[in-house]
């Protein structure tokens, strides 16, 4: 008898940012991605309000979860700082 497949509960995503080290974060599927943002900012000592996160070019809302965005293992989330330029 083949064993029944275990249901996937977590996804590992990569958070990348310009001029910074990539960070891999394992996220539960039903966890609001606000937690991911907080984890990343805490890890790197950043101000969470000043950092923007995008997935596939769209901004990530706090309440969205991994399953909402259909994230998969190895997907990349971008983190941005708002930059002044002229």
């Amino acid at each position, binding site marked *: 008898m083949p064993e029944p497949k275990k249901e996937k509960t977590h996804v590992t995503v990569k958070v990348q940012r310009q001029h910074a080290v990539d960070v891999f974060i394992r996220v539960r599927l039903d966890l609001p991605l606000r937690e991911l943002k907080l984890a990343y900012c805490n890890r790197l000592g950043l101000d969470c309000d000043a950092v*923007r996160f995008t997935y*596939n070019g769209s901004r990530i809302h706090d309440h969205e979860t991994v399953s909402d965005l259909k994230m998969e293992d190895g997907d990349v989330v*971008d983190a941005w700082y708002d930059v002044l*330029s*002229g």
Partner: protein
Amino acid sequence: MKQQNVDDVVRLLCLYLCVMLLFSNKANSVNWSYVHYMEDLEKVKEYDWASAVSKYLLESIHKNHRDISQLKGSSILLLYFLCEHTNLVEVKTANRVPRLLKWKISDLRKSLKDFTHLSQLADDKVHNTNLEETADEKKIFGALCAIDGGKREFSGQQQHEEVQPMLTDNDTEATAALVLLGKKEDEICEEEEQQKYEIHVGEEDEICGHHGDEVQVFAEQKQNEVKVCTEQEKDKVEGNLSNLYGLNDFNSSSQPSLHLDSFGTTQETDSGTTLVPNTLSTEEAQETDSGTTLVPNTLEQPSDHAMEVIDKLKKQIETLQQEKKNLEIENMEIRQKNEEALQSHKDEIEKLNSKLEEAQGTNEVHQVTQQATANKIKRLQKEKEELENKLLSIIVHQVTQDYAPKIDAEGKAKKQESPTSRILRVKERDDRKKEKESKARKLKRLGGQIDMTELINTNAWAKIQQLWKEGKANAAVWHVASQILCVEVSDIQNLLFEDPLSSRVMDSYAYVLMQDHLGAQPRFDLSTPQPKSFIFPHYLRLVIENKSAKQVNQTLQKQVDKALPARFFLFSILFQAHWTLLVLDKEQCKWKFYNPLRIRHGTDGYCGATDNLRKVIAEYINSQTRQMLNIKITEEVEIVKNSPQQSSGSVDCGIVVISIIMKYMMNESQTSAITTDECRKIRADLIHTFLK
């Protein structure tokens, strides 16, 4: 031998006598007070040594009667006193001078064997008679007194001591008399303190209160005695030992001077009391205890009266002192009030001074700031003129360069050109000149003359001021929840102060423009309007980098699919802190790159940064639309040479990019220049948009 040495020997002998016999003490040391009396040998005999010795002895007995070993003074006198007043010892030779030769004192011991107390003596053994001066004594003392007959005057202080109740009928009276004698001669007792003295007086008054009457009697008789004494001065020369007195120094004027009574006269006047040869005088006392001695000598009746007066005076003094205290308290209160008033005045003055200083300081500050601002304005105006001139020259130079390659190409083709083409070329040249002149004129006309603050309306100003008052630079002024877009106070500030544009503002304004653009498009059915231009967020270039093909595809599907109907794809590019714009014209299949700071020589690095973006987008569009439109988009890009340029030194690249985007959205033709005022107007528009 010198006379002085003889005198010194005499003095020393006298002192020895005093120490060893008359005023003996336990230590056998000489008290300095005796030395004083030995200075003048002539006066030595004038002092009343008898009374002094007696008093010293009695005082010592009084003090030390509990402990005889501490007794001081000439205690042997007590034995002779006993012999004199009792029959215990047989008188061997009567009328001897001095009297102590009358008895053999060692016999006293035998006769006193049977008695433990003197009170056990039988009455018959005690003499109740008074002492009387014998004939021999009279002769001897008379002779002595005759020598000093001229010195008969006494000071008034001696009066109460001239008469001493010495003899009594029995032993008790004798002791009482002794005590009284001690009382009368207190002042002579040299070392006694006044306090002790007073205690003695009190005790003795209790012991022998009845003698006070005797003293009073003496006091009353005083005047008579004085009279008698003065009249019968010569007769009284035969006085007893107590007549030995002197010290003319003590003739005080406050009290009447008296002559010493003779033994006989007092006997006549007062039968109850008798005079004693050993009467005392107060000269010594005055010398030893100056000041304290005279007070107890006053008589009791006058003293009572004086006490009343003293009491009255004391009361008056007390009342006066109270008044004085009250006055002092009032004075203190007045002083305190004055001080308080002074302090309050001082405080007010200080406050006024500080206010004056502040006012002066603020005035100075205002003047200084006004001067500084005036200078700054002048300097800025100068800079502005210089920059405008520079800008003009740059634009002229740029225009000339734009046409330089054409000229070269024309120059090359010149040889092969026909005459008709030459005419065309001349025409083009003329047109170019005209265009150049018109641009220069326009730039000159529109040079930065407008102030940023004039462009902002009052509502926006009010909002800005309110935001500044709140003081939260990170507070969101404008936001779109669905897109997670926001503009913060700091961004408004940057727009106002002509600072660099933030990515937030760029994306937010792009969103606003897109909404306006979509709203302005004609609708032919109920479907969503088809945009003519589409603005992509600035991060799209970065999003598609370092991603798997699958994720890039997903991203492009999300981002590009909705833009496919549009003709112009506008990509604001943020690279190395500089805003540029990449535009895809889908109809012409052309990429255009607008750089507000165009690189004149070499390759444009900013444009190179968009290579990947162009490639990815082109591939995607080709894959999506090839069948429908049969077009192929290449990666080739044209760097627009006459794109509007930001003025040198400014940070208006973002504004310039926005202006280009706006032209695309409004479907207007692009201009080749933008002035500072236009940039400011755009900034003002942005501020108004976000502060609505």
